């Protein structure tokens, strides 16, 4: 979780520089192409080709960088849940937040379509080993209801013996910690 956040700071400046470079290369090419056509200056063609290669490479690098960010954002939905913490959102631009929102909608729609009532496939990430697990509460989380109706108060440092499947998400979010004896 932490390494994702640290990496995440948006390289807005870098991207802007690349786009400016692309604009300038393109303009130089436009003018050279016109000259080559009107004045028959064929010796301009190699540099036109070179600039075009640079433009293609820049486009590829930018697309690869942006797509890599999307993959990390996608990973957040699976590892962390559908509500992102403020410190992660801070590093995302508006379009990335939009992508995330759309992605989780798509995923929710897919999950709802499974069977009669849907199936949350972001749960059950590990094969079940035991029914109940010992957990320690790492932060105050308030009341928590389990299947048979009993309500547990999740107070910081309290320990509980709870059904594993109810705790999975809270463990991933860092609210509970699995205590291995």
């Amino acid at each position, binding site marked *: 979780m932490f390494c994702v956040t640290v990496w995440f700071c948006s390289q807005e400046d870098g991207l802007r520089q690349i786009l400016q470079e*692309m604009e300038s290369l393109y303009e130089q090419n436009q003018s050279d192409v016109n000259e080559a056509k009107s004045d028959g200056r064929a010796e301009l063609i190699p540099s036109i080709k070179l600039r075009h290669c640079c433009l293609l490479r820049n486009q590829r690098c*930018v697309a690869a960088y942006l797509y890599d960010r999307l993959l990390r954002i996608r990973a957040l939905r699976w590892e962390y849940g559908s509500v992102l913490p403020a410190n992660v959102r801070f590093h995302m631009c508006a379009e990335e937040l939009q992508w995330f929102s759309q992605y989780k909608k798509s995923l929710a729609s897919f999950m709802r379509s499974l069977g009669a009532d849907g199936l949350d496939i972001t749960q059950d990430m590990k094969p*079940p080993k035991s029914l109940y697990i010992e957990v320690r509460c790492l932060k105050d989380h308030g009341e928590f209801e389990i299947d048979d109706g009993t309500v547990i108060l999740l107070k910081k440092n309290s320990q509980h013996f709870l059904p594993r499947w109810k705790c999975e998400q809270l463990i991933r979010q860092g609210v509970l910690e699995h205590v291995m004896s």
Partner: protein
Amino acid sequence: MSDPPSDDGSDAIHDDGQDVMTPAELIAKLEEAWLNEKFSPELLENRSEVVECVMEQLTHMEANLQRVKKGDAKASMHRMEIDRIRFVLSSYLRSRLQKIERFFPHILEREKSRGEGDPSLLSPEEFAFAKEYHANTETYLKAVALKRMPPNLQTVDMLKAVPEPCLDSFVFLRVKERQENILIEPETDDQREYVVDMEEGSQHLMRYRTIAPLVSSGAVQLI
């Protein structure tokens, strides 16, 4: 795995167009589909009829569990059973979604050029998910970068930009139906092509490309 708890009337599960299955057979089918999908480098044919049946079976088991006396020792075993089946099902669906996301332009292209009678790789819901993923990603790239690029560079050919699955990766497999004369392609020029017979129950490590059709026909099981 022990037989899941079931009522008298529901020992049989009807798989569309096929013979009646017991719950144990259904779960075995799910596990086969799960392992194949997990170990195959490419997306396999969708098994939505198995998914549907398993979902129904899970609902049924949950309902049965409610009726068992609390504190009964059997209840915890059945609970574990339900959790295990749900894990396998979720893992299977996750494997598929991951591959759909990873290879989305190629999968969508394949779907587009599919013949009328050919079976679809994707369930209708997976197809919708794939299309939305594609549209979402294109919209994002356009808005953040592409629309600010020179006019002739405002699109990215996704089919070229996104790598295809590596069908030459090696997989472990177990033979379910005896196979004769399987052609193994030579890896280098100085190797000669050779054919092998694969005995039932034998296990091999081979290139996926060679045995891909045998996986879809059910003749081999990836392990």
